[in-house]
């Protein structure tokens, strides 16, 4: 099962709002995964155990795992496209784990 993390300033409000929304969309599609809201101050620690990172900020850092634009889930603009990217990333992570 893929693990998705969403980070915001304290891992409480914005990240949890996005995480809840993603959770709802994924369960509608019957895709199993865990979505967790985390504190961006401790991102380096959390990213180690994650398969996909949903970001609500723009950074110039590069990550080992796929990064999805979380702002789309807050504004609704481009949400379908980002969600499709997310679903693909989850499928890839699951396939990788199974294989």
């Amino acid at each position, binding site marked *: 099962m893929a693990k998705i993390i969403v980070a*915001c*300033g*304290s*891992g*409480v*409000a*914005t*990240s*949890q*709002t996005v995480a*809840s*929304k993603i959770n*709802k969309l994924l369960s509608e599609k019957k895709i199993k995964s865990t979505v967790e*809201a985390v*504190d*961006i*101050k*401790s991102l380096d*620690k959390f990213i180690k155990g994650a398969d996909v990172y949903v*970001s*609500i*900020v*723009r*950074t110039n850092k590069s990550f080992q795992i796929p990064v999805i634009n979380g*702002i789309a889930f*807050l*504004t*609704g*603009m481009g949400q379908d496209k980002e969600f499709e990217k997310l679903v693909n990333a989850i499928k890839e992570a699951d396939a990788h784990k199974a294989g």
Partner: protein
Amino acid sequence: MQILREIVNYVLNLGAPVFVPLIMLVVGLIARMKFKDAFSAALTLGIAFTGMTLVINFMTGAISPAAQALSQRTGITLTAVDGGWPGMAAISWAWPYAFLLFPLQIAINIVMLIFNWTKTLNVDMWNVWSKIFTAVMVAYISNNLILGFVAAAIQIVLELKAGDIWGPRVEKLTGIPGVTVPHHITLLANILHPFEIIMNKTPFLSKKIDSDYLKDKIGIFGENEVMGAIIGLLLGFAAGYSITNSLTLAVKAAAALVLFPMISKLFSQALSPISEGVSEFMRNKFKDKEVYIGLDWPILAGRSELWVAVIITIPVLLIFSIILPGNAVLPFAGIINLSFVVAALLLTNANIIHMIIMGLITSPLFLYAATYFAPYITRLGRSVGTVSIPHGMMLSWSTFESPDMRFLMAQSANLNIWAILGLLGWFAMFYWLYKDIDRQNKEEAASELEPAEESDAS
């Protein structure tokens, strides 16, 4: 009428962990959520209250004896324990009138958009709590419920106007177009603005510093467990505890700071179906209009300047809490000072030295506001029903957001003539800030159209 009053009293006496979920269930069903989902969200809210009560009691239980020992040993009396914003948000949701602030914010926003008085569509429903908090504080201090709502309404209008001027800044700082931060936390820019003008005329203050590098080096001190452990250990030593007891306090303090956001998350989890529904409704209503979508401040959290400035101001706040005469607050759960830094980031265009100076000069303001509001926060905390604050101790919030605006509003509601004049002056300063940032935005937009101009690629 008598029966109705008795029913209302009965429900309120059930305590916040029961009656707020009941309200939530009713609101959810009115919003046509499925019963299963509405019930689950309501129950999660009750769990959040219960969990937050546990954590606040755990924190006060660990910190109060140390604060009292400190006072006996040194004469430094810090009787107010700092619950931070997660603690304040929790007790705010427990106010019996809390949910009325949702329709108030939505209605004001819709009216202002229809009449083109704002370009900001605020879909951030989480921060409705900050309007609840303002309403409670003003209502408690003035003994007038209506004035509490008036203050909250003024805050909503100011937030939307602030959203209008920050939109272009947010895009410049984050690269995300079409969004803004209509958060009252940014209104501190009002009193920082004159300082920024002076600092802009002081050349050596605009030196470029590699904040990414700095954040990599000192970022660990901003992590909850590390910060909690350090504060707990220092407090233990200052209180004259043995090494063993100091180390125990360090671990307890770290536990409290790690648990706070974990519990707080449950509130946003419970509220997310409602906030999602409202947000979708608002966006659909204005989908043909060009607006800035208003989001919570963490869209700016990718800027390393913000974290560097916050971490540097942690020891400053601790030192001020000891040396400031009359301060009663021991900084703890609220020590990550977001209350100045978001405004400072936007106002200075991420000039790190300016931001740090702003953190230094505003620290006393937050601590004094925290001291002033502590009795009212304690009253709200106790009225929630289950938060036990030891006798002689208080609950507060060391980095009390919008200290200037909330103090002036509360005192004005009390018909204090100086406060009313002060509030009018504060509005005049906001007008000045609005015009100035608007002019800067227009100049920047114009210079971007001229390709020969040098551009700041930060």
